[in-house]
């Protein structure tokens, strides 16, 4: 525990106190939507807001089903320095153009106000109001949260070791060549550092292509720099050093370390402090299917990334003291997104695999007293279900319009026609999804055991979006606050 951590904690405590004071008059829930890139954060937030403001089919969301929810509307966000979440644009893209929103490049914020009548004694006094603050951000940045607890030497040795395993070694070959020529004790040089950082970034970019779908690729700003493009803070790379190596002033090692520390304290920590340190509820969106599509290596990598990221959060039950100074996330939902790419009979297996992936974080949170749930969901359901009877066998299939250029079974789809897809059976034993050679993924061969086709958003006439288990999610995350 050093001085900068203390300062960080003090700032968080001060902000929490302010929130608690405001919260007594105007109850607010800060909902943390965590998810790596392409997990579906933007679509989830869009669908959530749309469902609440337009009144979708939400039979399991009690306050809505009981008729106690009066309405929900967007309201000016509290933080003027942060851009507003472009909900209208995203909705337009999904409903009119039937394309998914583009990947998020910067942080944005949204405030939703729910008017409802409480069932408790409070309800007799009249309607109540709950404010919901939601933040959207590029999922790549979330990877950085794992860096907060690590020194440069620790991170460096881990990153180098990881880059020498499996498929990564192939992508990192160029960077490895430079790495060998640069001794940590060489004198510092901007040219060497810049070259090294570029090659390192190339390796990270190559690893996350859809076909291989690797996830554990910090630092996140290397992939999605935002407004920090070209800054010296983003110009560093791991060196081949031991985890407990000491630095000599003026060396390459010292220069890299300085920049890494600057990155952590000026980029990562403020990001965490502003948006994650004071969450009440959290949903962790995981695109399990993309990793499953790529193969066991990608799934194992996803587990690594998630475990690393989730250690940064504080989960557990709250006491009145912790509510004042450092509230903890007391309900956390792990959601396997895009469950509409599968027939519902496979959802149990998908949930089992996700449970296996987040088992460490899950146990930790449950042990600390937080309520934990794992669900397969689809914020926007793009498919229907059907079955194919062939040769005495019945195959559960999903029907939807694949995105243009998607391929399966030797066909390339135009993006206009509807097709029925059977994506393959998920492994029954979740451990097999992570085990090397557990099954054949698409990362290794063209015809893997699983093929998840991406579909275009559904056609909707009334502005409402079909979903899978969104009501269940809302009930778990907000149900008790709206009781």
């Amino acid at each position, binding site marked *: 525990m050093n001085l900068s951590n203390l300062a960080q904690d003090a700032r968080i405590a001060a902000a929490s106190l302010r929130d608690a004071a405001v919260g007594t008059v105007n109850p607010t829930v800060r909902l943390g939507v965590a998810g790596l890139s392409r997990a579906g954060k933007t679509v989830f937030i869009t669908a959530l807001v749309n469902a609440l403001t337009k009144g979708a*089919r939400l*039979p*399991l969301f009690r306050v809505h*089903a009981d008729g106690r929810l009066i309405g929900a509307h967007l309201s000016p966000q509290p933080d003027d320095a942060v851009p507003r979440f472009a909900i209208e644009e995203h909705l337009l893209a999904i409903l009119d153009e039937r394309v998914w929103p583009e990947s998020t490049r910067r942080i944005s914020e949204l405030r939703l106000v729910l008017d409802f009548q409480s069932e408790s004694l409070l309800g007799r006094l009249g309607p109540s109001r709950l404010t919901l603050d939601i933040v959207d951000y590029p999922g790549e940045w979330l990877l950085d949260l794992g860096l907060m607890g690590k020194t440069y030497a620790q991170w460096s040795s881990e990153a180098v070791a990881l880059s020498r395993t499996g498929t990564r070694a192939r992508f990192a070959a160029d960077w490895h060549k430079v790495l060998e020529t640069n001794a940590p004790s060489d004198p510092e040089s901007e040219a060497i550092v810049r070259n090294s950082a570029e090659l390192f970034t190339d390796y990270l970019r190559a690893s996350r292509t859809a076909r291989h779908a690797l996830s554990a690729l910090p630092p996140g700003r290397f992939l999605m720099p935002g407004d920090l493009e070209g800054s010296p803070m983003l110009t560093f790379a791991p060196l081949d050093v031991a985890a407990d190596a000491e630095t000599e002033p003026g060396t390459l090692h010292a220069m890299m370390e300085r920049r890494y520390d600057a990155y952590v304290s000026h980029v990562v920590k403020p990001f965490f402090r502003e948006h994650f340190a004071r969450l009440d509820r959290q949903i962790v969106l995981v695109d399990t299917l993309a990793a499953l599509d790529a193969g066991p290596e990608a799934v194992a990598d996803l587990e690594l990334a998630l475990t690393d990221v989730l250690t940064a959060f504080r989960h557990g039950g709250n006491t009145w003291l912790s509510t004042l100074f450092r509230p903890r996330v007391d309900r956390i939902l792990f959601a396997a997104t895009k469950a509409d790419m599968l027939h*519902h*009979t496979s*959802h149990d297996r998908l949930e089992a695999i996700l449970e296996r992936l987040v088992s460490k974080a899950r146990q930790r949170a449950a042990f600390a007293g937080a309520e934990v749930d794992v669900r397969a969901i689809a914020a926007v359901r793009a498919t*229907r*279900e*059907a*079955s*194919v*009877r*062939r040769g005495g066998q019945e*195959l559960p*299939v999903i*029907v939807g319009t694949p995105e243009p250029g998607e391929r*399966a*079974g030797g*066909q390339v789809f135009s993006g206009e*026609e*509807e*097709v*029925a*897809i*059977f*994506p*393959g*059976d998920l*492994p*029954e034993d979740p451990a097999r999804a992570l085990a090397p050679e557990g*099954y054949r993924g698409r990362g290794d061969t063209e*015809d*893997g*055991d*699983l*093929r998840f*086709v991406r579909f275009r958003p559904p056609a909707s006439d009334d502005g409402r979006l079909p979903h*899978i*288990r969104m009501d*269940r999610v809302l009930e778990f995350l907000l149900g008790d606050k709206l009781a």
Partner: protein
Amino acid sequence: MASMQTRPPAAFRLDDESLVFPETGEDEAFLLDEVEMVGNLPVVSTPVKPRRSPLKVLFWASLGSLVSLGIGLAIANLIEDLFARYAWLGWVGAALAAVFVLTCAVLLAREAIALRRLAKIDELRAQADAVLVSDSRTDGLRVVGDLLSFYASRPATARGRAALERERREIIDGADLVRLAERELMPLLDAEAQRTVAAAAKRVSLVTAVAPRAILDVAVVAAVAVRLIRQIATVYGGRPGTFGFLRLLRHVLTHLALTGGMAAGEGMLDQLVGHGIAAKVSARLGEGVINGVLTARIGLAAIAVCRPLPFAAQRQPTLRDVAGGLFERKAKD
């Protein structure tokens, strides 16, 4: 859905003939499920039945046969005698005997149906309990399907049934389906049952307060309790006959015996305080309250036994809900 090995991915065109949408094929699937379930029934219910020794079976069977032989003989003799007196009297006797046999058969059939309905309720509750634990969607759908057909003849549940009918096509997990069914179908019935219990409790307390003899109290409580149990069974769709009622009575008493201790803890304070105030006003009033509470408790046990779903999404009514009125009224008077 037991898949032995993994099946490879596949893509089909929409004009593929082997493609079936559940929107059209679903009802058949549900029918199939139901047939399977009815086939399973005896297996489910046999272990619940108490074991009978073959000796006892023989005893009761022979006794029963003797008695029915005797009755049959008596009737036959009677008709013969009647014929011996006057022919027309004999015909009247024969006609009456025929009517008697027919009504007996109809009554027995109705009893059997009523017993079957009660068994169905027990079975539904057991299945719902199992689904709440296992969260299996297929089993949940089965419970919902059964509930829908069970309440198909209750107009008051029409809206809830329509909503359930819609939702069961969506992707909802088993336990959630059961909770949803409870929320859609039960509230109206619950309210009616609670009203019935509260009214019965009030009636008992009033009658005991004015009844001159203690023995009358007992008679009144017993009569009201019997009526109450029947009413509640009817509210939840049980409609018990005579044998059904005896069976129900046994269930209610067992339930009371099992939960009596717990329930005593939950409402004891209320009762003591309420009773204390009422007793200060008048000793008879105090006894009235006690009898009312007893009736309310029997009513609660009847609700727990007759409701086809466990209390999972809805709050279980407590003594305060159904007997709360007793104390206030008495204390004020």
